[in-house]
């Protein structure tokens, strides 16, 4: 029996390896999302703020320094000095590459020492309310620092920050965990769908239809290969995320994904979620006539599941429509435990995830295999 399974698995592996489209198909969409999300949400480094200090005294420079050095919980500063000339800064601000321009007048220090309402001019981009809020409050952080240096001991409020964890998860690694799961399910489903469709179109399905051996020898190797490809695709995404974390301007080193000794938990969750979708892929492979139709359906279903079921941010506490929609996709049940393992190297709460995913995967695969067998008229 094992030999039969191995021979069929080997055949499927060879076919898959000789079809570059099928090989690439599972990788491209998740890597595109990873790159896209990385561009949007990673390396949230300092934004450019030009400060032109014409102050004759020392306080102007101190104010500029305070604004540039105020630190963000991300681990860097809010602003950086672009070092441009006034003309270039004006152009960059006009073209939306700078957050703003601060002008400190010549009499700033004099007026501060005299207690005569020292003022600075602040032009800033407020193209939407959240950005405008950041522009204002980031400078407020700088002012707070400036007052601490300039008027020590006068603060009427002392703020202590208390965090429940040693370090917080940043948004991009959190998203990357979602992309990792997406890449696994896309890799596995695309592989399974493409192989089945190929057999259907080439007529080699007849070999199995007419064979005395059980249809199990047809489907189990495909499931095994789909699982392996899912792992491989996830592996590629894992490596890309690690490289991104290591690049200058990327994430601070070591802030990528790392399952540590709990890699088996991540693999288990990833495999179960993939199996939930592989069933769908099997049905598609038997039903559609053209590869691009099925390919598009798979890619888009995967992308939808990513966005709607916790790929971007936890959804367990979502309310309203989102609170209902996420439950339709298996991904959502795995994401919390998945993130706990990959971001904090601590055991996730597997119980609730397994209670849902194991039966879901079993039913999905079971029904799909029955459908395929029936389609092959073997039952």
């Amino acid at each position, binding site marked *: 029996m094992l030999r039969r399974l191995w021979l069929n698995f080997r055949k499927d592996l060879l076919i898959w390896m000789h079809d570059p*489209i099928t090989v*690439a198909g599972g990788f491209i*969409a998740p*890597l595109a*999302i990873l*790159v896209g999300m990385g*561009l*949007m949400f990673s390396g949230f*480094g300092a*934004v450019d703020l030009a400060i032109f200090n014409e102050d004759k005294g020392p306080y102007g420079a101190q104010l500029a320094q305070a604004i540039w050095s105020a630190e963000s*919980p*991300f681990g860097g500063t809010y602003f950086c000095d672009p070092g441009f000339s006034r003309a270039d800064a004006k152009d960059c601000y006009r*073209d*939306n*590459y*700078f957050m703003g321009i601060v002008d400190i007048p010549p009499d700033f220090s004099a007026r*501060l020492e005299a*207690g005569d*309402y*020292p*003022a*600075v001019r*602040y*032009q*800033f*981009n*407020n*193209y*939407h*309310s*959240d*950005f*405008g809020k*950041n522009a*204002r*409050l980031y*400078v*407020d*952080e700088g*002012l*707070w620092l400036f*007052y601490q240096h300039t*008027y020590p001991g006068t603060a*009427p*409020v*002392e*703020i202590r*920050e*208390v*965090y*429940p964890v040693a370090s917080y998860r*940043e*948004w991009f690694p959190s998203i990357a965990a979602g992309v990792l799961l997406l890449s696994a399910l896309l890799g596995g489903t695309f592989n399974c769908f493409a192989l089945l469709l190929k057999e259907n179109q080439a007529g080699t399905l007849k070999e199995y239809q007419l064979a005395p051996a059980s249809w199990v020898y047809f489907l189990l190797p495909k499931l095994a290969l789909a699982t392996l490809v899912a792992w491989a695709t996830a592996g590629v995404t894992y490596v890309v995320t690690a490289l991104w974390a290591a690049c200058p301007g990327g994430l601070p080193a070591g802030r990528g994904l790392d399952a540590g000794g709990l890699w088996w938990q991540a693999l288990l969750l990833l495999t179960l979620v993939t199996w939930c979708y592989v069933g769908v892929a099997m049905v598609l492979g038997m039903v559609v006539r053209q*590869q*691009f139709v099925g*390919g*598009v359906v798979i*890619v888009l279903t995967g992308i939808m599941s990513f*966005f709607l079921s916790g790929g971007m*941010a936890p959804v367990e506490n979502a309310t309203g429509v989102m609170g209902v929609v996420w439950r339709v996709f298996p991904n959502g049940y795995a994401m919390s435990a998945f993130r706990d393992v990959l971001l904090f190297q601590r055991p996730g709460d597997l119980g609730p995830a397994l209670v849902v995913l194991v039966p879901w995967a079993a039913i999905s695969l079971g029904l799909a295999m029955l459908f395929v067998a029936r389609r092959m008229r073997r039952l």
Partner: protein
Amino acid sequence: MISIRRFWWLLQAEFRLTRGLLVFHFIGIMMPLIDFLLLSQLAPPVTFTMYTATDGSPQAARLVTAMAALRADGVPDGPFYIDPQPLPAGAQLGSSIQDLVEMQAQEDRLLVTHRYANIDSNLVKNYRNRLTGAALDVWEEELGARAVTLELEPRYAIEPSFTRYFTMGLLVMAVFVSSVFIGAPLVAKDFEDGTILEARLSPVSPALILAARLVRVMLTSLVAVGLAAGLAGLYLGVWPSDGWRFAGLMVLYTVITASFGLTVGLLVRKILPAFLIGLVTTLVLWLVGGGFALPVILGPALQVVSRFAPTTYMMQLLFPLYYPGTTSTPEALGIVVGCAVGSFGLLIVIYRAVVLRPR
């Protein structure tokens, strides 16, 4: 053999080919709309509810008042940033309570302990900035004339929510996605099915054949952007201030995107890879071009790249239509026109090399 009638026949024939690529038409038109509905959920609220636990002292009350008064200054009806709420009895940090501000008056100051639930660092930053802003207002009130006055000059007279900017990004995305998702597979299918031979052996001017295909993709993209603009208008009440200018800009932009989509199809020549490559390049060009957020959030290298993306200038041209009282950069229109001419020219060159040149 050039005539209006022939062009009309070619155009009709092009539209009939929709039947073979219905999936892509559906995706190309619906995807931006669905993305808009999904991603607009990500729009962060400006007003955060922050729970407070105070000792009832006047100092604590003063800070709570400052929290409630913290708002977007410099614009009319600027939103408030904090909605301070007393911690409900029996409630604790976690799930719905994401942060807690505990206030305890001391002799000479108010000691504030800011506690957070297990949330991501972006949320931590948001809560912290708000508290700092409120605390700064309290300090500046005490400093009086010694406090630094910020003379605010916001760039835009209105400061709308993120969805207004994202509407502009959606419109640009609608054009781009529909052009590439339809144009690339349309051409690739001809190669896969062998029907490219009809164009190869035709005595009709290749410019006419190409023009019909380009116009066909452009028209579909214009329908897509029309639907997107309608959705944004009805859902958000956001309409372009000058409909004719808007239409003209979109026609110009569809030349660029349709040319790009057809070029991808000519170079790749297989449907599914053309779709996937189109997906990736569209997403990247849209992002670096400021479709999701201004290029200010990009690193220096990507800011340089964004200067080469037509999307960047298209977004600049849309600003005056959605942000009253603003103007676009003077060279933006020239660059977009140049891109349109250049992309169409490149399409012709590639078409000749791939389709017409004998092997």
